[in-house]
């Protein structure tokens, strides 16, 4: 029996949580914030929780057909919350402009005739809030103690790498706080279904590596058994990261494949750790961050010949 992690359900969890989004949104945007370079006017509703909630309401009535509920991506438009997207680097003024006047040469239509400027700013404030990640407000606690727990009692390092050290089966967590929200990290530690951004029905625009970490057991023709997680597969081949920390490639026609129903990731850290230990681990995890490199200097000056 094969399982696929539900990359999108946590969107609902976040939506149900509601308040955490609002908190993030309050921080977001404007000059000085990460990615908030000050081209154009600042959002007049910056820090206004009520306005952000109104923005969420307007968004969910107006934008979901294309962009999905709570910015998860829909059938036509991209996810607005995914941190890696170029849209995420836009200033508040650029978001405002895109909503009000549309984006030329794309399917993004103008909403300026339908929404007042205030409403557009509110939606922009809400979208900005979708983008915050854990590093913007790291969890309180003793991060140094949390690091100890990560490598010892928590056994996290058996599967996860931080700064080049650790096991290879799970995701590299070196920049966890730069890519995930705190609520998502808590979900990952405590809930069987925990991923954040998913396609929500969208057609992916680019081919990207598999991120499902599907556990799998492969029996080769010679009887040798390899366990690990799927890096990729298709109807003709399998690519696996083994629990032996080695890559294994298989011709599908020559092996037997069993998909394990349970993730290798434990989801009871709130029980296997004390409350203080969990708090400290979270403090450590929400500080795992690699700042983006500064923009490359403009070319020129070297000349040719």
């Amino acid at each position: 029996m094969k399982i696929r992690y539900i990359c999108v359900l946590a969107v609902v969890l976040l939506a149900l949580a509601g308040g955490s989004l609002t908190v993030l949104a309050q921080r977001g945007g404007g000059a000085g914030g990460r990615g908030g370079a000050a081209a154009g006017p600042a959002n007049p509703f910056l820090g206004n929780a009520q306005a952000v909630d109104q923005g969420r309401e307007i968004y969910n009535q107006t934008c979901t057909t294309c962009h999905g509920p709570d910015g998860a991506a829909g059938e036509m438009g991209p996810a607005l919350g995914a941190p890696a997207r170029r849209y995420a680097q836009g200033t508040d003024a650029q978001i405002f402009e895109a909503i009000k006047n549309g984006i030329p040469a794309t399917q993004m239509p103008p909403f300026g005739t339908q929404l007042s400027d205030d409403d557009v700013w509110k939606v922009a404030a809400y979208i900005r809030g979708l983008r915050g990640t854990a590093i913007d407000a790291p969890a309180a606690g003793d991060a140094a103690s949390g690091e100890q727990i990560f490598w010892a009692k928590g056994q996290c390092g058996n599967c996860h790498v931080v700064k080049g050290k650790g096991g290879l089966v799970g995701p590299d967590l070196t920049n966890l706080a730069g890519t995930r929200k705190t609520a998502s990290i808590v979900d990952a530690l405590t809930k069987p279904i925990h991923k954040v951004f998913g396609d929500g029905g969208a057609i992916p625009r680019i081919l990207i590596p598999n991120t499902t970490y599907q556990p799998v057991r492969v029996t080769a023709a010679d009887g040798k058994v390899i366990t690990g997680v799927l890096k990729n597969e298709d109807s003709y081949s399998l690519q696996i990261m083994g629990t032996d920390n080695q890559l294994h490639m298989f011709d599908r026609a020559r092996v037997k494949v069993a998909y394990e129903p349970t993730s290798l990731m434990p989801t009871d850290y709130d029980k296997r750790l004390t409350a203080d230990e969990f708090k400290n681990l979270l403090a450590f995890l929400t500080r795992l961050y690699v700042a983006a490199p500064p923009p490359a200097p403009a070319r020129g000056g070297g000349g040719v010949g």
Partner: protein
Amino acid sequence: MKRLVLAGLVLCAAAIATAQGDQDLLKPDPSDWVQYSGSYNSHRHSLLNQITPANAATLQGKWTYHMNQQEAIQAVPIVYHGVMYVSQFNRIDAIDARSGNIVWQYQRPPLTRGAQRGTAIYNNKVFVTGADGALVAVDARTGHTVWETKTPAPWRLAGQAPLVAKGKVIVSGNTPSGFIQAYDAETGRHLWTFNTIPQKAGDPGSETWAGDSFKVGGGPVWVSGSYDPEQNAIFYGTGQPGSQWAGEVREGDNLYTDSIVAIDVDTGKIKWHFQNTPHDVHDWDSLEMPVLIDARFQGQPRKLLVQANRNGFYYILDRMNGKFLQGTPFVSKVNWASGLSPEGRPILTPGHEPTVEGSHTCPSTAGATNWPSPAFNPDLNYFFLVAQEGCGLVLRTTNRPGAGGGYLESPKPEEAWQLYVRALDATSGKKIWDYQQISSFHYGPGVLSTAGGLVFAGEHKGQVTALDARTGKSLWHYNTGDLITSSPMSYAIDGQQYIAISSGTNVFAFGLPRTN
């Protein structure tokens, strides 16, 4: 059908200058692929038979063409007399279909990225749409503009491939509500507009919307349709009603959303309609290609229209009048309706409307199938489609009237989404075989049938596979290395049959090793 249609085929570059007209569309040369679906009946069945189950394992790459400065190609290439045309919004590249060499490129500013699904050819012109609502006729030999027009406000064209029928370029769109339009292929003059939903009180269908609730919009048309010259009608699917997750703001059946409509090609007037999903709250567009089949049904020769619908049912209609003849589920789990009434109306089961908590619905909103095209092999009477097994959770964000919503894959492992290429008996709807597209779980490209007895199917993550049309057995595969978001097609030059498919921003052409 069994004759070797390639025999004696001699074409040369000078043939490009041949005027191309109605006959080329009504009875296309099997060496050409002159429109989105290959032929007016939308069979996607090439009459070429050089590639067979016996030799498919020897297929090899012939050329690759990169369409620069673009996102993944969703267009199906068309080929006329050795020239291939591949489109995007505002863009057509003409390629020598033998070598993959570029012949000319048309780029109307601005450079535009978006889901544009193809072009059409007629009388030495190829037609392309712009994201700004422009419709342009370009000289098929040079890429020079012949005429350019703009959809009259407030309409905006969507990305579907134009369909040329009786000298008219048929296009469609979503904004402000669904519509189909015809333009004169020679001049670009606007001829008629058909609105898929009422525009004012008293319009046909307005009685199926509470009050003036048709103002919520809907009925988008973003996929091409089919054409029956004998009936002088085009057949198009229409999309979902506006306020798609919140039916309480538009009580009634909401015509003509989620319907198949037959439109008089001369007047734009509706001849008949069949609504697959009345009062839809699951975003189950009926934009899956309507396929026109002449076949014996229950002992009688009939002119049929068949469609595998996003809602999970395979429909067989009489295309002369739209009468429902039969409807059967083509996926294993359909829980929102217990079946169809004798008139084809779904018999609803309770508990599947979108809720804040999420209601469990099979198929999911992603659909039991979607816009990637099916194919029909008349020799076998098999209908091939991309079927998606699995269920979903359908959500709305609040309980307030008109609230938005969305959908998710069911968290139950046994209901996870999985794509199959599936063969049905076209006139009974019974499943013949399945080919599982491992690791593919959302949409995926459409399929191509060939008289050689093959089905060509792309997989979303880049594999192209040749399947035995009788058994579904995989005979050959090739990893194109990028996402495949459009359907394969086939053409021939100088006795060589080619299979072409877009992958990412490239077009790949495959064929057998040459023996001469």
